[in-house]
């Protein structure tokens, strides 16, 4: 596409509570995250004002120590909300949100003048987006005019509307909001090496102040969210706190009479910033250095922590993440065995132990896409922005109205199969037959699927029996081990417990149970070694047609099953 035809310059924006990212697609169609002037691809979503000068990103973050009152941070979730429904906790060490004219605002000195101004959340958002877009425009060498922006799945229409207006005030047209977890899946599926397969994906977006999980059915490249979970009790900041407490205690151990750095705002801010840096360093290296000048009472403090120590200190938070993901799978009425992939997104997903703990909690058949568990994993911090950039490239040339029409529920809400459809193999006797999947449940209709099956050794007449089936979990108990129970110890609680954990786990597998026959068809006179192609078409009204024929043969049998 040439520029004359498309005056829009559209980018993808991931606007987080902690960090924001901007991304574009290269002429080859590859999504790429843009670094701002400071070289950051994860730009802290922070604005700070020093004598009327505005700072954003890493520079603004540094102001949390000396100028916290005029530094606005962690505000994304406040957009479009009223004061009653927000949690001000993350803003404890920056400008506090206040209630102002039915909306939320910050009281900051944002001009050279002495007095404080009340700056609304919309205004802050506009300023932040303006900066982001300016960075993108700089990089692209042309003014960015439009964007696709990612938001959490529980962002309300009111919030989206407020964000859209704030962006418009910054001169940016929001073409579309897309869900953060879906953007992450799109980022993976848009890779040239990606293979579009029907599968269930869990996206665990572990951010700075919240963690969000979505269970997504991916069917023929279309995505339907089956369940979500939102969590504000286990997130990146809780990992920071683990290290803050650790280093504060180490500091107090060394300087017995010094005052606790956690009790002084400025000391705490330093401690927090450095702890976050240490945390990030531990995602890459086996150990990291902590070093803060004048931490408390004018005392400098340096220390080292290694990864295994950190993993131990943070084990409860890590376990919380695992439970959160398992809980979301349960909410979707699924079993870990149903999950083909876990996409780890968000900055916290860089943490190796989180990825390995998830891998341990899920069966081997589940691949955990994170830097620690997969060499082909994409950068978790970039997934949302990349997905947004890809979507932006797809819709950039559409009329605004067209996008609105296409994203309306009247188009997006679609009947999805409640039960999987497939054919019986091996035997026409249900107890011996094996179900072979054609269309999985939660697939939107209309849908067509084709599969080729071998036939019995001698060929001849074969039966194609189209059935619905449900997946069930078959649990096989481990063979009981005879234990040496000679030494019944008195105070051996711990011992018996460790014994239990050594015990072999039960074996779990997914088996299909046919529940209903839909249709039968015969293919006659298949030649020796012949193969049969089965094609099923399900219409929007759940009417279904079956076409079976010998591969390379002529004719074939076709039949219709009425809809509902």
């Amino acid at each position, binding site marked *: 596409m040439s520029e004359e035809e498309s005056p829009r310059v559209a980018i993808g924006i991931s606007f987080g509570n902690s960090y924001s990212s901007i991304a574009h697609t290269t002429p080859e169609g590859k999504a790429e995250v843009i670094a701002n002037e400071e070289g950051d691809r994860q730009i802290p979503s922070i604005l700070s004002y020093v004598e009327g000068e505005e700072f954003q990103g890493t520079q603004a973050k540094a102001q949390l120590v000396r100028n916290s009152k005029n530094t606005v941070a962690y505000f994304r979730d406040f957009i479009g909300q009223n004061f009653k429904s927000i949690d001000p906790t993350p803003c404890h060490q920056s400008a506090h949100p206040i209630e102002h004219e039915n909306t939320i605002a910050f009281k900051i000195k944002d001009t050279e003048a002495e007095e404080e101004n009340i700056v609304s959340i919309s205004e802050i958002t506009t300023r932040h987006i303006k900066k982001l877009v300016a960075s993108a425009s700089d990089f692209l060498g042309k003014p960015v005019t439009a964007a696709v922006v990612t938001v959490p799945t529980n962002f309300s229409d009111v919030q989206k509307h407020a964000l859209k207006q704030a962006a418009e005030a910054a001169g940016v047209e929001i073409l579309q909001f897309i869900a953060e977890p879906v953007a992450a899946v799109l980022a993976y599926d848009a890779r040239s090496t990606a293979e579009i397969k029907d599968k269930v994906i869990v996206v665990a977006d572990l951010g700075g102040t919240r963690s969000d999980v979505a269970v997504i059915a991916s069917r023929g490249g279309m995505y339907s969210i089956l369940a979500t979970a939102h969590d504000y009790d286990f997130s990146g900041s809780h990992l920071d706190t683990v290290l803050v407490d650790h280093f504060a205690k180490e500091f107090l151990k060394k300087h017995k009479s010094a005052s606790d750095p956690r009790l002084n705002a400025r000391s705490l801010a330093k401690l927090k910033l450095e702890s976050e840096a240490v945390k990030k360093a531990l995602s890459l290296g086996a150990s990291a250095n902590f070093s803060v000048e004048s931490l408390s009472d004018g005392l400098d403090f340096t220390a080292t922590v290694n990864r295994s120590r950190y993993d131990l200190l943070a084990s409860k938070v890590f376990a919380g993440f695992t439970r959160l993901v398992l809980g979301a799978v349960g909410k979707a009425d699924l079993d870990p065995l149903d999950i083909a992939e876990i996409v780890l997104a968000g900055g916290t997903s860089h943490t190796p132990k989180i990825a390995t703990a998830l891998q341990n909690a899920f069966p081997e058949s589940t691949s955990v896409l994170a830097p620690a568990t997969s060499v082909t994993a994409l950068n978790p911090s970039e997934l949302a922005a990349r997905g947004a950039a890809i979507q932006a490239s797809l819709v950039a040339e559409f009329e605004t109205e067209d996008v609105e029409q296409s994203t309306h529920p009247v188009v997006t809400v679609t009947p999805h199969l409640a039960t999987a459809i497939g054919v019986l193999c091996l035997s026409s006797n249900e107890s011996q037959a094996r179900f072979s999947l054609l269309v999985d449940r939660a697939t939107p209709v209309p849908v067509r699927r084709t599969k080729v099956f071998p036939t019995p050794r001698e060929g001849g007449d074969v039966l194609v029996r189209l059935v619905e089936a449900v997946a069930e979990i078959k649990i096989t108990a481990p063979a009981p081990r005879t234990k040496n129970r000679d030494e019944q110890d008195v105070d051996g609680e711990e011992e018996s417990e460790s014994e239990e954990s050594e015990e072999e786990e039960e074996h779990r597998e997914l088996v299909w149970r046919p529940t209903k026959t839909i249709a039968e068809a015969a293919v006659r006179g298949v030649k020796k070694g012949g193969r049969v192609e089965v094609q099923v078409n399900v219409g929007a009204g759940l009417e279904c047609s*079956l076409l079976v024929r010998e591969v390379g043969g002529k004719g074939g049998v076709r039949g219709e099953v009425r809809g509902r």
Partner: protein
Amino acid sequence: MATGVKELPLPVLPDSWTAEKDFKAIGTLSDPVQRNIEPVGPHFLAHARRKRHKRTFSEDDRIQAQENVKKVEDDDSGEISEPEDPLMLQRDAKDWKGQDHYAVLGLSKYRHRATEDQIKRAHRKKVLRHHPDKKAAAGNTEDDSFFKCIQKATEILLDPVKRRQFDSVDEAADVDPPSKKQAKGKDFYKLWGNVFKSEARFSKIQPVPQLGNDKSTKEEVEHFYNFWYNFDSWRTFEYQDEDVPDDNESRDQKRHIERKNANARKKKKVEDNARLRKLVDDCLASDERIKRFRQEEHAQKNKKRFEREAEAKRQAEEAAKAKEEEARLKAEKDAADKAEKAESKKAKEAAKNAAKKNKRVIRGAAKDGNYFCGTETASPAQIDSALNDVDAIIAKLDVDELAALTGKLNGKKDVADIKEIFTTEVKRLVDAGKFKDGELKSLS
């Protein structure tokens, strides 16, 4: 295209299978679920194009689409709301051990049953209301002590280990056992049932068998008591530990308290096990079902005995009857045998008599036939020879032949006729090989 996984072959068509045009529609697909497809990615765009192709949607369509869709986001309103006790709001967070963490989060009626998700949501709800910044905005002093209580409650309830320690001593979740008086009739199952439902939370093995009701089977009841007499509890008593001093100075003191705590925990655990055992004893002692089962068992035993005795009696009677019958049959048979014997004796005698008579007739006939000498007067030698020959004939004849010969001779007076009859008889006997030809001189 087949995927990487090797497919299994289709089954052979059963011989009996027939269908018009080789296709049979049998059922319909199950009801679908209306879900939202995320409007993202190239495949969605294709879907939207197809769906919107040459179509306009009415306002009705638009509203319906929004209404029928399956919701994936939780509705946060309602659910966890419970009035806040003003006294609780004044709590000091320092006394967190004495605080009811569930009540602080508004989860009193859920307690140990509250899910992690519920706790998180309750926490968020409380934070939204009690964050010090909110209070400051409402013109209140920046008192954050209840906020700290909320944070402490959440910290404990979201930590599985700490939560168990608190749940172990959460008296508010206890249900007191009923007195004997209270637990009468139907109330027995309700009151004791609640006790065991509450105690079940401590079981390492889940689910836990419940008390049931008066319809429960003996097996169920036995299983219930067996389970509870072998109850494996995770209950611990760390939560009631005495605080261990944190500073490094008083190391001995620290160790002393630690030891004291360990002993106290152990003691409480033993006491708790005994408490539970007594609970089960008490329940068992007044469980009507046990009595009933015993009675039923007794009745069953009696019934069995009756049945056994009746059966024995029946068998004895049957045996006696069989014996009688046998005797009767034997007597009948004997009588019949006797009669038959008599009959045959009689017949034999009659036959003998008949034979005697016949012999006499035959001998008489020889005399009437003039001893086969025609019209001449028979000489004594001739008479003797003729009589000898007749006796020889008689000796060769059986009873029937005697009768037949007698029949032929009866009433015959003519000498020639008589001789003729005898000669014929002799001839027959010669033919039968009983005499040699000419052996009987008088009749040759």
